[in-house]
């Protein structure tokens, strides 16, 4: 059972805290000889697999590392363009690691503010007045749980669909926020949370919730 990540969004829709607790490792590293039987193309700031699927490598996976060194967007670790590098037979055999790309902090910021807007749309669509807003978003690979406090702060947790006890976890995160972020006089409201104690206690709470498993916490 796993809790994948936690996001905290302030009243204006800005992301003030983000933690990736567990990422299902679906990276595959393999050695290839010339010519490469996967079709690669650039997309955004990365090089992704456009066509060709084998041994765990899927369409949409990005090139994460070449010969053990992590790539930097579309350039290899030593600054050469990835696609050029891989079209040169002299560079083979080469070991490439493919996997789902991790979201960058900017992407997370953008997604958090988009979620904030969707949340507002959700309340407006409601046929009844005073709707709670989006509480859960469900997909086949994860469930997103959201809790908005009376003061407008949103706590968002992404977890395995079978994970139970997330409601209690959201309340617990609210308590941890009110303790370790707000009671720290050097933390300014609505700003990014950079408090060690908040991190530590949050991670502890996530571990407790995960151990409880699909049946929820004992109490």
């Amino acid at each position, binding site marked *: 059972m796993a809790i994948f990540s936690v996001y905290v969004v302030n*009243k*204006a829709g800005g992301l003030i805290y983000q933690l990736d607790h567990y990422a299902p490792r679906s990276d595959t590293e393999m050695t290839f000889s010339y010519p490469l039987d996967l079709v690669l193309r650039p997309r955004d700031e990365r090089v992704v697999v456009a066509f060709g699927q084998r041994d765990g490598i899927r369409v949409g996976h990005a090139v994460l590392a070449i010969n053990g060194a992590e790539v930097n967007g579309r350039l290899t670790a030593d600054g050469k363009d990835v696609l050029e590098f891989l079209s040169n037979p002299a560079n083979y055999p080469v070991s490439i690691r493919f996997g789902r790309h991790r979201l960058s902090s900017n992407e997370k910021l953008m997604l958090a503010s988009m979620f*904030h807007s969707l*949340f*507002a749309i*959700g*309340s*407006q669509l*409601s046929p009844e007045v*005073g*709707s*709670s*807003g989006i509480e859960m978003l469900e997909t086949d690979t994860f469930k997103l749980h959201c809790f*908005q*406090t*009376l*003061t*407008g*702060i949103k706590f968002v947790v992404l977890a395995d669909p079978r994970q139970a006890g997330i409601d209690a976890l959201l*309340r617990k995160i*609210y*308590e941890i*926020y*009110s*303790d370790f972020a*707000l*009671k720290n006089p050097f933390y300014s*409201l609505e700003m990014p949370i950079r408090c060690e104690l908040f991190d530590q206690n949050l991670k502890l709470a996530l571990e407790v919730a995960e151990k409880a498993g699909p049946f929820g916490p004992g109490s």
Partner: protein
Amino acid sequence: MLGSPDRRNSELFTLTYGALVTQLCKDYENDEDVNKQLDKMGYNIGVRLIEDFLARSNVGRCHDFRETADVIAKIAFKMYLGITPSITNWSPGGDEFSLILENNPLVDFVELPDNHSSLIYSNLLCGVLRGALEMVQMAVDVKFVQDTLKGDSVTEIRMKFIRRIEDNLPAGEE
């Protein structure tokens, strides 16, 4: 009970608050400025304390001022100061009420000297209430109208509802 942890905590609290007020009096030299500072500090406490209160007490949103008065007197004051003030003197429009405190933990052992006759010793509380309610979209005016430190029989805090704060409403509250 003498020496019990609760009593020791509350004495340290009284001493700390007293040290704060006397230092402000030295720094600002006139009572009006001290009152303003206490209100400001209270406001900063209130905007943070509200989240702790909501996280621990699980109360839902109040939809009228009477509910608010009840929650403040029976849950909030009890939680943070260990006292339950009574609610009286409702205005005909239901937008003003008084909290009567028979004892105020902030002023245990305190006597106000003559040269500080316009000092509102517990003004921090007004700031706290104002800050906390602002975070749940209520603009209120809070002031002391009676004070045992000034010779009145009870301490009375008057709270007036000004308006609902409409900007930056959390989604779903419109």
